[in-house]
Each structure stands twice: as structure tokens, then as C-alpha cells.
């Protein structure tokens, strides 16, 4: 495969195949550093606090939350949508970018996909907790029962159950299938011992046979082809939770593609936030380079601008529709009691990513890190604005109301951060953070060493 010398190399430094193995394997060997323990402890504390808050919710009931009759969905659903959104980057990177043959994907897909799985787990918690009775969670699944009543297949909330669980399952399968060759590599690096036995078990007996590789590639391609519309469908169905209703600000046809775009936008921001730290912490600077940063930031501009255009489209059509309720919903967003949330959303989501048009900024790790945090915040506020401000002043002025979260809701949110980071810390310790085999497969076409030689 010929690669133009004009292209920027993706992997810097003098790399041979064994060096790639060695350097990506390195963080998994030896004793973990103090920062790792400190991070894990913090994450576990947050997780414990979250579990306590969930306990309080279940023990005392949903009344411990700040919800009221007008605003039935507050932080809980906001966090749900936010986490699901973050869970879109991984599969976008590994599926859609695979279909588009983007080679820079190889260095980040593994960890991004891990983040996807963890984020979707965090997201899935919220609707369950929101039921108030966790053990009754099985009510949402269609199963034969003595009453003969089935679940309501007309309900977008039920579609969500199918979408999220399918997404979690397929992402997990996709991720693990990509992992087995690399687990095989780890297995073969280990000397005898219990650890080797565990990795041997997890590697599913991987040998690296050419036949297996061919099937593996074929499977990955078709899985990618399936996962691509799946990614779109998940946030589409999440958007249906709102858009199938008749509430001004919720019911609008642009929601499905706009939610998907926003999800990829926030997911990429989260991946950037974490990868910028991780690459420094475990010395993977040669593998996650400025070239990767620039490509990811370009996707951030694209998706961020799509989101911006969607905001403006909604605004314009609200005026154009001539529906006074629709118009009021948007005036209320911008100038009502929750004006601050709206303007935080606008600044963080529409304005900050535009800075990436400047080449210097999109190639700077520091700037990207800061902007990615802005985007994370902005996308959280987007969901808050959509959910709370659309609900708090409904058709009956007598039932207008305000909402603020209690410590229990904040606690559960912190708890999901705890869960997410606990899993992430364990992941970087026990699994290769970068897809070793995939990086090797693009080494000759994308590494500095080979490009310079003009091979």
C-alpha cells in the first residue's frame, strides 16, 4: 500500500515491531505508580458515595430528589443522556472510521471503545435508579408472565431498553474481539504463572494464524458495518424519548441526527480529555501524536458546528412555525430563569470548538485539553437545557415551577464518575491501552521511520 510522503507520520520515533509490543506492554508490568493508586482510591471513594446515594434513593424513595410534578426529569435523565452521548465516540472511532479507512484510528480505538463501554454502563444506571425500585428493573423486558401483558412496544422508553442493551452488547463483542490478539501478545510476554494462565484463558487460544486473521478482518468489517448504523440508532432513540412527545422544545424533527452529532461531539471531547492525560502518564507520546490530535479536533469542529447549526435551525423554525408555544419555549430558554444554562451551553458548544479552526490551537495538547473540558461541560448543559427548561414552564402557568438538585442526585452523578474512572484505571493496568496488532499493521505506512526512508 503506497502512502504519499506528504502525509504526516502517525507514529514518531524509531519503531520496530518488537518495540511497539514492548512500549505498549510496559505500563502493565512492574508495580503501578503512586498516582495510579491515588487515582483509583479517589475513584473508589466517589463510587462508594454514589452507592450510598443510590441506597438513600431506594430506601427513602425518589422524594429525596429535587423533582416535582412539573419537572419529572432532572439530573437523572440529564446524566443518562450525557453518559450515553459520551459512549458514542468509541464505536464511532472503531466502526465508522474503519469504514472510512482512517488509519489514525488505530492508536485510540481501543481505549475509546473501553470508555464507550464504561460510559454506557454508567448511563444505564440512571433509568434503573429513576424507577425508584431497582429490583423491579426486569419489568422493562418482555418476558412471558402470568398476567399475559407484554411491555409497550410503542414506547420510546422501551426502544431505549433495546437500543442501549444492544449497543452495550455489540460494543463489548466488538471490543473484545479486537482485544484477543493483543491479549495473546500479553500472554506470550508473560513467563509461567497464574497471570499467564489467566491471560491464556482470556486470549481464547489466539495463535495468529493467517486464516484466523482473514476471518477476523472480515468479521470486523461487517461488525463495523453493523455498528455504524447502531451508533446512529442509539442516540436517535434517546432523542425519541423527547421528540415523540408534544412538548415545545422537545418535539422537533431535527432531534435524531442532531443528537447523534452532539453525542459524537461530547464523546470525542471526553476521549481527548482522558487520552491527553493517559499518553503522558504512561509514556505513549510516540503513539498518540499531534497528527491524532489534529484529526480528532477536526471531527470536533465538524460535529460541534453541526450542533450549532441545529440550534440555530431550531430557533429559526420556532419563529417560522408561527406556533406561539414553540416560540415561547425558545425565548424562555434564552431569557427565562434558566438563561445561564442556555448561555453556558451556547458558549461551550458553539463558540469554543470554533477555536480549532486555528491550526496552532488544534495541534496544541494544552489548548485541546482545556477546550475538551469546555465541551464536556457544554454538552451536559445542553441536556439540562433541553430537559429542565422545556419542562419547567408547561402549558399551564399555574403549574410552572423551578428545579434544583439535592445532594442525593449530585451524589449519584459523582458515583458514576467513580464507576467510570475505577473501570478506566483497572483497564489501563490490565489491558493494552493501544491496539498493538493494529498499530503494527499500519507501522510501515504511517511510522516516521518508514516514511522518511521513502519506503
Amino acid at each position, binding site marked *: *500500500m503506497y502512502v504519499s510522503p506528504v502525509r504526516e507520520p502517525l507514529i514518531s520515533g524509531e519503531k*520496530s*515491531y*518488537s518495540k511497539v*509490543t514492548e512500549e505498549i506492554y510496559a505500563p502493565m508490568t512492574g508495580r503501578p505508580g503512586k498516582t495510579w493508586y491515588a487515582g483509583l482510591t479517589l475513584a473508589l471513594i466517589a463510587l462508594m458515595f454514589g452507592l450510598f446515594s443510590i441506597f438513600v434513593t431506594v430506601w427513602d424513595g425518589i422524594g429525596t430528589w429535587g423533582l416535582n410534578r412539573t419537572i419529572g426529569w432532572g439530573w437523572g435523565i440529564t446524566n443518562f443522556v450525557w453518559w450515553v452521548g459520551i459512549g458514542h465516540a468509541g464505536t464511532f472511532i472503531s466502526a465508522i472510521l474503519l469504514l472510512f479507512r482512517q488509519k489514525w484510528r488505530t492508536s485510540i480505538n481501543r481505549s475509546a471503545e473501553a470508555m464507550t463501554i464504561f460510559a454506557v454502563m454508567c448511563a444505564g444506571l440512571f433509568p434503573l435508579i429513576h424507577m425508584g425500585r431497582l429490583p423491579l428493573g426486569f419489568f422493562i423486558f*418482555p418476558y412471558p408472565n402470568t398476567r*399475559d*401483558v*407484554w411491555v*409497550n*412496544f*410503542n*414506547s*420510546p422508553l*422501551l*426502544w431505549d431498553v*433495546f*437500543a442501549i442493551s*444492544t449497543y452495550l452488547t*455489540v460494543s463489548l*463483542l*466488538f471490543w473484545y*474481539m479486537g482485544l*484477543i*490478539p493483543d491479549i*495473546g*501478545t500479553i*500472554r*506470550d*510476554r508473560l513467563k509461567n504463572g497464574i497471570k499467564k494462565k489467566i491471560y*491464556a*484463558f482470556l486470549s*481464547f*487460544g*489466539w*495463535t*495468529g*494464524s*493467517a*486464516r*484466523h*486473521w*482473514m*476471518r*477476523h*478482518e*472480515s*468479521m470486523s468489517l*461487517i*461488525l463495523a458495518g*453493523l*455498528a455504524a*448504523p*447502531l451508533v446512529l*440508532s442509539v442516540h436517535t*432513540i434517546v432523542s*425519541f424519548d423527547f421528540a415523540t412527545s408534544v412538548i415545545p422544545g422537545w418535539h422537533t424533527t431535527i432531534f435524531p441526527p442532531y443528537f447523534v452529532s452532539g453525542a459524537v461531539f461530547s464523546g470525542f471531547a471526553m476521549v481527548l480529555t482522558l487520552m491527553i492525560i493517559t499518553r503522558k502518564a504512561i509514556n505513549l507520546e510516540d503513539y498518540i501524536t499531534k497528527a491524532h490530535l489534529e484529526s480528532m479536533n477536526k471531527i470536533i469542529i465538524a460535529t460541534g458546528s453541526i450542533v450549532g447549526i441545529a440550534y440555530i435551525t431550531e430557533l429559526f423554525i420556532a419563529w417560522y412555525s408561527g406556533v406561539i408555544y414553540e416560540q415561547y419555549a425558545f425565548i424562555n430558554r434564552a431569557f427565562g430563569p434558566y438563561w445561564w444554562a442556555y448561555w453556558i451551553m451556547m458558549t461551550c458548544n458553539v463558540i469554543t470548538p470554533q477555536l480549532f479552526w486555528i491550526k496552532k490551537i488544534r495541534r496544541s495538547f494544552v489548548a485541546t485539553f482545556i477546550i475538551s473540558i469546555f465541551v464536556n461541560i457544554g454538552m451536559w448543559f445542553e441536556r439540562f437545557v433541553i430537559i429542565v427548561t422545556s419542562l419547567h414552564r408547561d402549558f399551564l402557568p399555574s403549574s410552572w415551577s423551578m428545579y434544583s438538585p439535592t445532594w442525593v442526585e449530585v451524589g449519584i452523578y459523582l458515583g458514576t464518575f467513580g464507576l467510570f474512572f475505577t473501570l478506566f484505571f483497572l483497564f489501563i493496568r490490565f489491558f493494552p491501552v493501544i491496539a498493538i*496488532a493494529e498499530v*503494527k*499493521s499500519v507501522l510501515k505506512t504511517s511510522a516516521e521511520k518508514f516514511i522518511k526512508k521513502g519506503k
Partner: protein
Amino acid sequence: MKNKTYVSGYFPDDKDLIIAIKELQEKNVDITDVRTPFPVHGLDKVLKMRRSRLPRAGFVAGAIGSIIGFGFQAWVFTEAWPLNFGGKPYLSVPSFVPVTFELTVLFAAFALVFGFLIRSNLGPGADNHIFDEEVTNDRFQILLEAKEGNAESLHESLQSVGALGVQLHEVKS
């Protein structure tokens, strides 16, 4: 059972591997397996491997998934327990689209993954023999199965095409 004898040799680079395979094929040596640290492009053509039938399995499973998904929802709402939701017809096709789609993808994905694992004899607890632990690192290995004591000649032909570390393996079968 009798033990099987294999001869293995490796190359440090994928280009050399493909050249060597072609040379071996000219000498009419049957290549049992080639093991590489990553998918080497063009190897499937050189080894004349048939295209995998996994996509077809995925298609069939996906079709089954969509039929089950749609059929089940339609059955529930028209036969099992018709309920009126918001004045929608019992057979409200647009409402069934999301779940049907999800089940299609789910079934197809399962078929692909399990098809891959079963066909390749991989899975939890699978104990395939590893001839060289460096294959998953940076070695491109050719594996030949010896029959009727031709191990010596295989050994020679492997060495003649420039393979490194040529050696014999006895494996319990």
C-alpha cells in the same frame, strides 16, 4: 494417538515471508499454517484462501433477527393482548421499526462473533499449541506438518528459502 511432527521457521519481515511462501509453493511444499503478529495484506491471495462466509452468516442471522423482532411485536399487539396506546393502530408499523432494527443488529453481531470463534476453533479455554511465543510479537512464522518422515526435507526447504530458527516440534494430538 500418535504425535504429530511440525517444522517451523520464521522471518523478521512480512515481505520476506510472502516471497518465501511463493518459493515454497513452487517447490510444491504444502503450507500448513502461517502465523503473523498482525494481518498481512496480500497473504490471503498468496495462500489462495477462500473468502470467509461469515458475512453470509451475518446476513442470515440478521434477517432472522428482523423477522423475529417485527413478528413478535406484531403478535403481541394484534394477537396476544391488543392494547390501545394513544389511539394508534394495533399494528403500528413505524413504532416497531426501532426494536426490529436493534434485534437485526444484535442477531447478526452474535452470528458473526460466534461464527468466527467456532470456525477458528477459538474460545474460552481453547488450548491451541503455540509454537513460538514471538509470533505475537514480531515474527512471521511458516508452519509445515511433516508426514511419513519427510521432516528432514521440509527442514531443508524451509532453510533454503531463508527462514530463521528452523526447528522440529513434536505435538501431542
